[in-house]
């Protein structure tokens, strides 16, 4: 077994706010091999974005990683110095976000922004950076890159801006790309273009990708494996096809069944009752227990007493649920 590129273990990231402690990430662990695409799926507040920010060392007060380890290619990132983090973040771990235009500096040309990323990573001189910026824009499918390189963010459409963000991310030839809801703000036809681009770049460069999304369909498009998060924990993790064919966790099952495509037109949809728990006030035991229909049917009492540990009923398929414990 080769060592994974990224190994997250027992990660706890908490936010200390006036009202109490928000356990945004509460014991998350997973591995990513080189060149692998892992989808992190869940609803708002489940901790998927905080997980990615924790990996990149971007948690700011009142948030803090209180426990756990993030090892990237043999280097421990939790508690690492700013110098170490800067040598990893950007050149080796790159990130793209949901709002590409908000991530770009409005008063700097596209070329200069890519150039900055290149300068940080490679130390190329100015003309070389310029040439490389044009190449990168071309690489991410922007037509007429020589002209575009001189443009400013407000001149770009949403899809174009996300391509520019991807170009910036690619500047350092990263080993890992973290894409946080990269297509959520885009129209469906543009989403298809961006996903296609990501898939194509990923296989060409052999980079690993963490794709964060609330949309199971997006995950299914390009991920090899998927991890479903609920209330700060990964409740199920397995190959994407297995997630669709044989989901084990009642929450995953509920998400699958509540898709409109899963039932007859104009009929009532299956629903998960209730709503996502307030992160300040998590229930004792399994966080999903209050919304879990199979729990009621099975009459399990452990669910409301103790949080389940991950078990692996099948090879490579992990689930946190007493029904399978």
């Amino acid at each position: 077994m080769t060592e994974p590129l990224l190994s997250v273990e027992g990660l706890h990231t908490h936010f200390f706010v006036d009202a109490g402690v928000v356990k945004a990430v509460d014991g998350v662990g997973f591995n990513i091999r080189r060149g692998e695409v892992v989808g992190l799926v869940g609803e708002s507040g489940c901790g998927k974005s905080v997980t990615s920010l924790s990996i990149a060392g971007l948690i700011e007060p009142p948030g803090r990683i209180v426990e756990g380890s993030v090892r990237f290619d043999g280097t421990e990132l939790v508690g690492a110095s700013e110098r170490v983090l800067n040598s990893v973040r950007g050149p080796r771990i790159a990130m793209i976000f949901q709002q590409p235009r908000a991530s770009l500096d409005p008063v700097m040309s596209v070329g200069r922004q890519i150039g900055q990323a290149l300068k940080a990573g490679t130390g190329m001189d100015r003309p070389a950076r310029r040439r490389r910026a044009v190449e990168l824009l071309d690489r991410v499918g922007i037509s007429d890159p020589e002209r575009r390189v001189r443009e400013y963010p407000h001149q770009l459409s949403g899809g174009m801006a996300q391509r520019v963000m991807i170009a910036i991310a690619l500047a350092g030839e990263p080993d890992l790309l973290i894409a946080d809801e990269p297509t959520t703000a885009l129209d469906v036809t543009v989403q298809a273009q961006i996903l296609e681009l990501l898939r194509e770049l990923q296989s060409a460069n052999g980079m690993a990708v963490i794709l964060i999304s609330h949309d199971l369909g997006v995950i299914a498009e390009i991920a090899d494996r998927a991890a479903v998060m609920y209330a700060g924990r990964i409740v199920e993790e397995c190959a994407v096809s297995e997630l669709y064919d044989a989901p084990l966790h009642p929450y995953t099952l509920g998400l699958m069944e509540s898709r409109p495509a899963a039932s007859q037109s104009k009929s009532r949809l299956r629903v998960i009752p209730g709503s996502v728990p307030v992160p300040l006030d998590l229930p004792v035991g399994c966080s999903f227990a209050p919304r879990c229909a199979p729990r009621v049917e099975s009459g399990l009492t452990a669910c409301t007493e103790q949080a389940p540990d991950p078990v692996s009923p099948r090879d490579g398929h992990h689930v946190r649920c007493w029904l399978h414990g």
Partner: protein
Amino acid sequence: MALERPVALTEHAASGRGPAGSGASEHHRARWERGSWRRLASSPVAVVGLVLTVLFVLVAALASYIAPTDPFSFAGTPFERPSPKHWLGTDDLGRDVFAGVVHGARTSLFVGVAVAGASLVIGTVVGGVAGFAGGKVDDLLMRFTELSQVLPRFFLALTVVALFGPGLRNMVLVLALTSWELTARVARSGVLAVKELEYVTAAEALGSSPWRNLRTHVLPNTIAPVVALASLQVGGAILIEASLSFLGLGDPNVISWGYMLNNAQSFVRRAWWMSVFPGLAIAVAVLGVNLLGDALNDFWNPRSRTSGAAR
């Protein structure tokens, strides 16, 4: 360029990238949080401002009880030092300085509140109508506002007093007519922002008339920063009144701190108490209302507010 209404709901999900997810982002957006008065009260600046302002108002309201002596009557011999009989001494004509300071608070408060109140009303009406009506009405009203902005209020006040004679009423009138321009701008920008919000459209969809919308939804949701600004203007008006009176352009029949300072000019070396105490009174009163205004401004300004969650 508003083609469709701001559609990007996904952006809310984005701003909820913080730990508490949508819960946190919703908190961010709610301007009125219950229990935040408690937070206001926990800010030292706000507490000091509030205490000083309340003190100022109490002194003005209860002046006749605190200092029963008429500030214009001859209460003792001239230039008495502060003593148990005359706490703050007497002036060149033997008038009680304490009585002057206490009764002067009335004048200052009257000028401050009258000017700020007038500016609040005029500014809100002009700015509110301009922002809500838009188009030509907006252009016209805002040009008019700019016109009033270029008038130097201090010198205008000087001129009016020189032409029509010193009088408290004239002074208040001039200051009121020249100090609403900023209020109008703040009110207008608030109305412009709020009138595009969906809850205003929603009310319109329920059959609400534009006028009703302005009254029940738009103004109540824009008035907070306007009120904060008005409280800052109280201090400004007090200072201008004092300055004019100091220059001898105040109303000679009304006791005021500026009038007392003007009178004290010639006797600074001989009777320091004649200038120090009215001066202190001005400083404390203006400090108090300004601190309170600042605190209110911070409290109501959404950008300076942080909800519990990060980002």
